[in-house]
């Protein structure tokens, strides 16, 4: 074999070796970044637990969706969840119904396509902290009225059906955001507001509820 070809081959082999090493390192680093990201986002990845037990009785709820009426921004639709012991699980079921969208053709979905519920936590003071995926903001079509429909469909659906929940704080992608689509301030928690809906506040529920809200274990 001529000498210059031999040298060429050796250089090629060394070059390949170093490039391969570099490649492995890059892959490893990307992997570790991905792992880190996963840990950062949810350090307590809970095991997939059912939101209700087989023995939990059904519970009729009103889910708020936009459309259906000229006078009201939100119209309710009767749906059924299961009365799980933990208010967090009941809240998750209500939001599940909201994410699935309305049954009636007259109503519109209130959450943008691809929105995921990442986490939900109810504090001792009765503030529900809800963390949605970034898609709730990215895929939002915009407009004040539309943004109101998204926010208050969440706040009213929870507040109306679960009196334990006094206020709702919306987080996006795990962090506090100033607004959802540029208009409505998310920095403060929201309170239920039925003035823009087709239902009246039900006194009996709020009156029957006294004492501190049930603490989350």
């Amino acid at each position: 074999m001529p000498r210059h070809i031999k040298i060429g081959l050796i250089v090629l082999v060394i070059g390949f070796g170093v490039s391969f090493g570099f490649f492995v390192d890059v892959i490893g680093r990307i992997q570790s970044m991905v792992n880190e990201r996963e840990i950062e986002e949810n350090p307590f990845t809970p095991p997939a637990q059912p939101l209700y037990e087989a023995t939990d009785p059904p519970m009729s709820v009103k889910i708020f969706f936009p459309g259906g009426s000229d006078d009201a921004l939100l119209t309710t639709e009767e749906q059924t969840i299961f009365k799980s012991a933990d208010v967090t699980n009941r809240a998750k079921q209500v939001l599940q119904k909201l994410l699935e969208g309305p049954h009636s053709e007259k109503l519109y979905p209130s959450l943008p396509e691809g929105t995921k519920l990442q986490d939900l936590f109810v504090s001792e003071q009765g503030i529900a902290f809800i963390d949605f995926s970034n898609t709730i903001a990215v895929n939002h079509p915009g407009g004040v009225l539309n943004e109101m429909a998204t926010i208050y469909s969440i706040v009213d659906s929870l507040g109306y059906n679960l009196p334990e929940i006094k206020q709702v704080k919306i987080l996006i992608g795990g962090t506090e955001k100033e607004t959802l689509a540029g208009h409505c301030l998310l920095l403060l928690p929201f309170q239920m507001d039925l003035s823009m809906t087709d239902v009246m506040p039900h006194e009996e529920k709020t009156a029957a509820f006294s004492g501190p809200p049930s603490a989350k274990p």
Partner: protein
Amino acid sequence: MSTKRIVLLVAALGAALFIFGRPSRAADGNFPIYFEGAKLVVKAQTTNRTLYLPVIEIIEFMGLPYTDSLALETLTIRSGNSRLVVTKNSGLISINDQIVFLPSPILRENDHWLAPIDFLSRGLTRMTRTEFRYRPGTSRIFAGVVQVPELVMNAQSLGSITRLTIRCGVPVDLKLRRDEQNNRAILMVGRAVDPLRERLDHKDRLVRSISFDDSDGDPKILIDLTNQVADIKLNSTDGNRIFFVDLLRKGETITEAPVPAETPGASPKVDPTQAARRVRVIVIDPGHGGMDTGTKSPTVLEKDLTLSLARKLRTALQMRLGATVLLTRDSDIAMDNEARSAVANNNQANLFVSLHAGYSSNKLDSGSSVYMMKEDFGDGFATAAVSRDRLFLPWYLGYRLNQQASARAAKILQDELIKAISGSRFPIRTAPLAVLSSATMPSLLLEVGNLNNTVNASTLTDDGFQKRLVGAIADAIRIFSETEQRSAN
């Protein structure tokens, strides 16, 4: 032969990246932790993109006893009957024998225990009930029940003066000191605050930089001056919640500076509703901008539509009212809502109107509405029970001062719009609008049309329609100005 060279080059590049491309350690920095009535400044360091704090200094400051076991490589912290154990290089900590995960491991370097910042909330809080509040990206922590108001800064060049406006959620006692040697003005804040922005992107003939600094535990605002600054005036209003720092240029006197006549500087008590009677300064806010396009139709972007309407409205108002009309943006740039209302606040505007275009899932909806700030917004958030859950209370609920005047303006605007655009409905609604929440004058948001409807979208871009719309808004503002003046007299 050239292939060989390329191979060599690639190999060398790969090797270089392999050796030098390792994640590096960021610089260390001072990190104040504010407790009630006391503060501790620790040195923080960033390792593997995680912020680490020295554990021993913090627990000693909190008066917690501990045992540092070199043999076991563990640190045991006690509080009452509780026990917290951390282990070197482990992200698992034990609190009363319950395991808690940290996103990054505990480190022990040069005899110092270092913990990721989450250790405070996930570890110490569970043991001591002391809450730690930290906003990612900032370099300070608030601990326990310490109440921390937000601090907002905004700077503006006003001809021969530069005005820095500072707002705080509670009354503060700002002290101005001039450091001639370093050509710098220092404003001591005198209490723990949470600055919304650490640094202002403002530079002009008088100011080189404006920044917040509390790295030594003493919160202050640093203004780096150019050598053209002659005098600095500090005025306060709204019960020491709002401060104006006016930098005066050499060769100018205060009377020549174009400070609005009603600058509430002389007396600390100015009734903003009185000052806002006659509409002389109007700030128009074209919604969205830059990356934030707002809502859209296949052919129209909300940000373009609002800017076009705002420019037309400015011309109409200047002609009909002879008023000073300012736009929050006059180009395609992104702005946050705080900065938009700050333009109105800093210019002591008598009316603030934000322009938007609507979108409704229902294509047949008209989409148009006149919005006011939701009246009960911010209620009940100041109660102790709630503020514990809230990390950062808003610094101001300025809209409340002018809610009634805003309602009068909304009604006039609705009437004029319905008159000008036949068959239209402009319902008056309230919403928790970020852009209106801190405006300290009568303020409205007008949302027109439904960009989900292509016919509606093309009408909105029609020049004739825009003129009619803008004419109606200008008429409404003129009528509002006249009625307010009359009711003031």
